């Protein structure tokens, strides 16, 4: 056992990278669920974003354009879900699962000629002065811009839900869509916009995996990250701050356990392997003891006639 081979600075830096895909996808799903819609298609939208972003980044040579198109790709796919559930009033669980399967298949088809290609590199920001600070510099100030985007988005979602009129309307729609409708809010329109936002965020999260974290395209490469994002939203009691905490905890312990394994720590590998899931759930469940609950209209279909 040789703990000295673990560099805590590099560890904390990789934590932020490992957490970003799940964080982005979970934030999107948080907004969707706060609007009262359960979209289980996160995995499908992520993988679609991963391939859309990858193709566009490779073709244009610009990761920024790639990320933009990844968001677009995820949103377009989620539009399918919006049509099914908001207009055709299809079952949300079934539609979401179908979206995941469709996304996995579609991405495999789109990505056939992109296996083994290297994407253009997403530059680190390396903020002058700040990134030169010892210890804090490499941990906080020398990441690619998507990491900061994830943090900014968390703050934006939190502030939007808590302080703005738009956030209030969104929450009203999610809590009681009949009352919101009676007050004259466009329930279906709000929900569609939330679904599109969720799709775009999932797309960004997927593209972060294919453009930064791995970086390459492989079929099925999100490998369940979308499901983790979904679980995170529930365990985080539909609160943006806790989603951030959960994502960083999960990403952090994932990276930490790999480091402990490589350093040969005398803890059975099985325990290390399950620790990210276990610890994240335990921490978030303890925190959710404060009577947080799901949006009351979550998963219920709405039609103005009812």
């Amino acid at each position, binding site marked *: 056992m040789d703990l000295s*081979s*673990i*560099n805590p600075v*590099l*560890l904390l830096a*990789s934590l932020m990278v*490992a957490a970003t*895909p799940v964080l982005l996808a979970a934030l999107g799903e948080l907004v969707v669920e706060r609007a009262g819609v359960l979209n289980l298609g996160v995995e499908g939208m992520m993988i679609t974003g991963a391939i859309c972003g990858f193709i566009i980044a490779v073709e244009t040579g610009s990761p920024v354009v790639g990320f933009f198109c990844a968001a677009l790709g995820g949103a377009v796919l989620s539009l399918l879900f919006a049509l099914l559930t908001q207009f055709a009033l299809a079952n949300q669980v079934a539609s979401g*699962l*179908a979206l*995941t*399967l469709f996304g*996995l298949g579609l991405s*495999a088809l789109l*990505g*056939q000629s992109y*296996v*083994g*290609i*290297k994407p253009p590199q997403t530059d680190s920001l390396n903020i002058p002065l700040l990134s030169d600070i010892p210890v804090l510099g490499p941990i906080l100030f020398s990441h690619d811009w998507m990491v900061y985007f994830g943090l900014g988005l968390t703050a934006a979602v939190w502030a939007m839900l808590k302080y703005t009129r738009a956030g209030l309307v969104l929450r009203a729609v999610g809590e009681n869509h009949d009352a919101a409708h009676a007050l004259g809010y466009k329930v279906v329109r709000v929900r569609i916009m939330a679904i599109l936002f969720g799709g775009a965020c999932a797309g960004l999260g997927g593209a972060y*995996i294919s453009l930064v*974290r*791995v*970086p*390459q395209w*492989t*079929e*099925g*490469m*999100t*490998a*369940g*990250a979308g499901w983790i994002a979904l679980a995170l939203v529930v365990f985080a009691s539909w609160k943006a701050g806790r989603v951030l905490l959960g994502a960083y905890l999960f990403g952090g312990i*994932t*990276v930490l356990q*790999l*480091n402990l*394994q*490589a*350093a*040969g720590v005398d803890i*059975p*590998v*099985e325990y290390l*392997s399950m620790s990210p899931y276990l610890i994240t759930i335990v921490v978030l469940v303890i925190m959710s003891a404060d009577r947080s609950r799901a949006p009351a209209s979550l998963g219920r279909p709405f039609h103005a006639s009812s």
Partner: protein
Amino acid sequence: MKLGALFASIALATGLATTAFAADKTKVGFIFVGPVGDGGWTYEHNQGRLAVEEHFGDQVETIFQESVPEGPDAARAMTQMALQGADLIFTTSFGYMEQTLAVAGKFPNVKFEHATGYKTAPNVSVYSARFYEGRAVQGYIAGRMTKTNVVGYIASFPIPEVVRGINSAYIHAKQVNPDVQFKIIWAYTWFDPAKEADAAKTLIEQGADVILQHTDSTAPLAAAAKVKNVIGFGQASDMAEYKDGPRVTSIIDNWAPYYVARTQAVIDGSWSTTNTWDGIAPGMVEMGEITDRVPADVKAAALALKDAIADGNYHPFTGPLNKQDGSAWLAEGETADDGTLAGMNFYVEGLTESIPN
């Protein structure tokens, strides 16, 4: 992903009606653990499937299901395939072992072939490749090439197949570099590019400049490509797209001849239970081209080692070798028997970590 498999099974079941007319064809089914586009393990099995299609043309129809999780879920996928009229089913991952035997018991007229397993039945054969022969060559190159004397190894599951590979690579790295140290990460997955990339990054951060992998995707090579002076190896497939980068050679699984021969046996009615374990010599294990990043003398010696293994002059597990706890395993000049190798659950002397159980 269980629901994913369920939906796929339903899709397969609905396909039943449309394909029933082709009953005179021999139907060959494949159960894959990852997507056919993983660029590694499943990709090569699918190449074998395509070779069967090409070789037999209209005589044979092949069907497959990809990304079938190991464990109880696999049984349903196999049952669906058997109900669909498959005459021969290849189940291509170690974790399908119990399910293969259980489903085979229910369909005595369907032949099953289980990859990398060790349990047979009247209608279940097992087949595997002696990947440890290729691992020996990799270990040799790793030992010669490492500057930091730290070799990172991304392992999947603690099964004999994987342990054998670690031992074989370590023995041959140690022979040429007594200071070499192996750092091993168990990913507990065959396919998860993000996790594999994280594992590779972790190993590199902890000083490894050679990465060996026993997981199926090209992600570790992509992670290694981001850093200078780190080399890696293609796993299961050539992974030639990283030739200009970290990949210096690769172990290639060539299943095609075996799949063609076994399909022929079913057509002839000569199929019987067998236990196949082929290595470099018959061509089931191939080594990818060694790139110029490897110095000429290392390359020549690595090729000589490969040839010695191929013509039977050298066995990668030749004594004197001790087990990790220091107890004697093989005496001077003694070679390991297949039974011990097939069930290998111990590290050789010198490896510092312990195998998860």
